């Protein structure tokens, strides 16, 4: 089974996103994630994020969004987590305020892994206790620990 923590080793976490719009959040989190060695081309990543989002919003419901992009330049799947205290409107009618953002980038050819990771993040996020744990986390380590526990019990 895929372990989410294996793609979170950089602990790319923002516990208080400043952005108030989805477009700004894409910029803010792209900055964050492109500091990792696995996303060398921020512009390509950002464009791919927007392109994917244009197909259908990545809001999952329950205040969770999973914007993601597949890029040729990405070397290895990488997941970042962002928390918005105010909430960000993703444009989904049933979920006006996304407070937990899982952003990930993945090499274009990794289709199987892409599906597996997206499904597993979705399963993590549908549990209320997991969402509450992320929202109350005070450090990247606490966020990471929540995923470690989830991986261990999966």
């Amino acid at each position, binding site marked *: *089974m*895929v372990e989410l923590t294996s793609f979170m080793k950089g602990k790319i976490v923002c516990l208080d996103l400043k952005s108030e719009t989805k477009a700004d959040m894409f910029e803010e989190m792209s900055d964050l994630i492109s500091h990792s060695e696995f996303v060398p081309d921020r512009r390509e990543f950002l464009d791919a994020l927007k392109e994917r989002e244009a197909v259908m919003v990545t809001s999952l419901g329950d205040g969770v969004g999973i914007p993601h992009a597949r890029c040729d330049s990405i070397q290895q799947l990488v997941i970042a987590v962002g928390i918005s205290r105010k909430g960000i409107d993703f444009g989904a009618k049933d979920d006006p305020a996304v407070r937990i953002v899982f952003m990930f980038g993945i090499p274009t050819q990794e*289709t*199987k892994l892409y*599906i*597996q990771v*997206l*499904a*597993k993040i*979705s*399963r993590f996020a*549908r*549990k209320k206790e997991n969402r509450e744990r992320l929202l109350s986390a005070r450090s990247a380590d606490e966020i990471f620990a929540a995923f470690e526990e989830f991986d261990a019990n*999966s």
Partner: protein
Amino acid sequence: MQLVIVVLYREEQLDDILSVFAELGLENTIVIEGTRMQEVLAFDVPIFAGLAAGSLGGKRYVKILMSTCPEEGISRQIAKVAKDFDIDFSNRDVGEILTLPLKELVTAED
């Protein structure tokens, strides 16, 4: 190699069970729509119409997911992950998971 078949009696949970398959890497899955014999009899064969008043709940269609998997124990993994989606295969009204050993599988890689 295993042939994995999941029969889901609650078609409204198809999204969830597909997510389970996706997470477990069962990417070559095929989804088929089917009907239980008892319900075909009840609704399409007049002499058996009395069955319609039984405990069928009016759910005529089931979803059948078929896939292959190299791992043993995939049925237990499916059942475990599915519980997070409130799909409990220990309840016979929910569905069934079957695995069968495959003697031979010919693919493009061969």
